[in-house]
């Protein structure tokens, strides 16, 4: 017949065993889940898991590993269950009763046959109320639960943002992370098709870079691995190189050939589903709804281009429309006086995005860039209102606009010497390219800097033709 002490100890034993099971399950679950999340993320980074299947696989795999770990912990917990004697010892330890309850349990089990068994049992009974009031050690369980929950959240938060991640593609291009719907690439494009077959990749790479073995090989490898961003990068490099050659001045037939090359690259982009020239899904791209209209006051009467988001830099011509559109930040409303300036800065693209991160000087036909107007200026003929300078990056880079100076001249401060901007831009662009490569800037910033020089080049060309 079970005594009161026996019942109490049995209840304690059950509770403690449940606690052990739960704690073991939690202790084993989160390392499994975390390991699975890390493994899946690694596989994704290596390109072994397609972007399309990754989010579901990451969530499912992490959860499954978590459950598997919990199951393993339960099995381990079953092996680590405590006996009734151990439960009595646990209570003794908590009470500081020097094994009295354990001894009493033994005495009761042997029918109080020992010399002092009755005394021991009697003394143990007096401890029963205190023993019953001992709480279970839930602290470790709660800590374990919190740890497991935290690790599960960490695992999922580690895994899911990587969905669609591509090493060479800006993070903002991740479909799951975009706040708005991703633009649909042109039909028949490859941008989301995943890795290509080797033969198809080789053929496409060859068609993209017919005379460039090195880029062709790189593009083929990237296409096989499904890294469209890398191909895009190669196309841009080729584009910059072509533009550079054109800017340096080439013969008319050569120029026509280079223009055809540019068209071929544009065609390649279209086939790949990449928006032309910086108008892709770059993080710096401006969305139409983010643009703020700047108002251009002045003789031009023109409506200022839409100010971009972010801090706007003062530009020649007094226009303060957003020149550069960082990823976030409030853009100042442009209130330029470009038109009123005697030699104010004419709108480089008259409402077109002059700064490619948002839309690209090439027309901004890219996804989010569509509609971005970059830094706007007032339209109209430049009026002489005296020199207005805007410091872009430092004292050496002042663009001065004086009454006798063309906007397309680069004035060294203090010296007064002028040189056509168009002749300086190629070398400046090359220097910038070398610098951003050397300094290991993040991809999006490199894009931005390139786009800036592309925009300047185009503006310079247009100005020169006028």
């Amino acid at each position: 017949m079970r005594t009161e002490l026996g019942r109490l100890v049995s209840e304690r034993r059950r509770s403690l065993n449940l606690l052990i099971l739960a704690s073991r399950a939690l202790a084993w679950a989160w390392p499994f889940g975390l390991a699975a999340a890390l493994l899946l993320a690694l596989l994704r980074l290596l390109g072994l898991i397609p972007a399309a299947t990754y989010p579901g696989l990451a969530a499912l795999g992490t959860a499954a590993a978590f459950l598997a770990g919990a199951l393993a912990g339960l099995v381990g917990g079953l092996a680590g269950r405590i006996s009734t004697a151990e439960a009595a010892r646990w209570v003794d330890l908590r009470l500081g009763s020097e094994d009295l309850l354990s001894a009493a349990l033994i005495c009761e089990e042997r029918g109080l046959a020992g010399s002092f068994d009755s005394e021991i049992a009697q003394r143990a009974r007096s401890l029963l109320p205190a023993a019953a009031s001992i709480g279970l050690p839930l602290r470790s369980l709660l800590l374990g639960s919190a740890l497991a929950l935290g690790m599960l959240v960490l695992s999922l938060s580690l895994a899911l943002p990587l969905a669609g991640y591509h090493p060479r593609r800006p993070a903002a291009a991740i479909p799951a992370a975009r706040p708005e719907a991703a633009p649909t690439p042109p039909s028949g494009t490859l941008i989301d098709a995943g890795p290509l077959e080797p033969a198809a990749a080789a053929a496409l790479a060859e068609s993209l870079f017919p005379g460039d073995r090195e880029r062709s090989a790189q593009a083929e490898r990237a296409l096989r691995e499904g890294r469209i961003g890398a191909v895009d990068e190669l196309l841009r490099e080729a584009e910059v190189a072509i533009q550079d050659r054109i800017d340096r001045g080439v013969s008319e037939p050569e120029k026509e050939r280079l223009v055809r090359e540019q068209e071929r690259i544009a065609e390649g982009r279209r086939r790949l589903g990449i928006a032309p020239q910086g108008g892709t899904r770059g993080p710096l791209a401006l969305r139409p709804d983010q643009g703020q209209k700047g108002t251009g006051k002045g003789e031009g009467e023109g409506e200022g281009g839409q100010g971009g988001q972010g801090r706007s830099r003062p530009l020649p011509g007094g226009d303060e429309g957003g020149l550069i559109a960082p990823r976030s930040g409030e853009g100042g409303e442009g209130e330029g006086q470009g038109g009123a300036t005697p030699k104010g800065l004419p709108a480089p693209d008259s409402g077109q995005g002059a700064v490619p991160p948002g839309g690209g000087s090439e027309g901004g036909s890219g996804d989010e860039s569509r509609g971005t107007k970059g830094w706007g200026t007032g339209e109209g003929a430049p009026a002489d209102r005296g020199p207005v300078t805007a410091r872009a990056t430092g004292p050496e880079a002042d663009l001065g606009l004086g009454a006798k100076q063309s906007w397309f001249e680069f004035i060294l401060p203090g010296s007064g010497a002028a040189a056509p901007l168009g002749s300086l831009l190629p070398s400046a662009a090359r220097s910038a390219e070398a610098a951003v490569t050397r300094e290991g800037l993040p991809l999006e910033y490199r894009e931005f800097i390139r786009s800036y020089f592309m925009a300047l080049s185009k503006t310079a060309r247009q100005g020169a033709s006028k």
Partner: protein
Amino acid sequence: MSDTAKVGIEAAVEGMARARAEIAKVMVGQGEVIDLALIALLCEGHVLFEGVPGLGKTLLVRTLADSLRLAFSRVQFTPDLMPSDIIGATMIAKGEGDDIGLRFEPGPLFANLVLADEINRASPKTQSALLQGMQERAVTVRGKSWPLPRPFLVLATQNPLEMEGTYPLPEAQIDRFFFKILLTQPDAAELTAILGRTLGPVEAVAAPVMEGADVLALQAATREIVATPSLMELAAQVVIATQPERPEAPPAIRKYLRWGAGPRGAQALVLAAKARALLGGRFNAGPADLEACLLPALRHRLALNFEGQSEGPPVEDLVRAAWDQARAAFAFDGAIA
């Protein structure tokens, strides 16, 4: 055990407490030493006291004998002491009437409490004779076995200084001592009290509070004290952890010990824990009892190797390391610890 016997036990436990108080009247300080000596008495285990001269070793033993009304004898061990000097000898003696014959004359070993002073000064032959009596509680003379009186307790002393010309006890014989108790110098307050008690006109004397039969009853009761299987397992784990060849042994023990405690050590540990519980008025032993008896029960059973003797930590530290190791191995699952 009948109720009457239980009442007797309770009275005997009270008597033991009174005996302790009586001893404390004579002995200043050394409370732990007195407790351990009483524990050894309840376990009928022999004790090896180690301490520099003048710490009251002889006084303690004599006072213990006085308070418990036990027969006491003292043997001063010297290099020329012969076995017959402690066991006794057969001699020609005149019996009743005109009969003249060989008669066994018991030596000082035939007493309840035997103080073997400076045991390491006697030759190994004499030491062996004493240790045989300690182990078998009987002596054999001319083929006849003579049982020693009960309770029988040898309280040997050993001087850690002046090792010149001594015969250190072999480890196998040291193992037969239940406890090895170290006596330390009294502090200033105790020393002042000693001066007050010993230099006055009246010498403090312990009054007898118990009989030898009470001690025997308590010794029997000690073995009735309940020690749970988990407690005995803990004691076993401690002893195992002192054995350097075991993988469970802590690194320090593996490094510095030649050998560790054996079954006698485990027996002494648990029995001493039981006696301590009884002296505390409890009928079951607990881990605290085990821990309190750890050092006296095990310190003399651990043999340092050469490295341990030259640079190792004190044996006491190694015993504590073994205890910590055993406790850790005995701990509950982290979830409920």
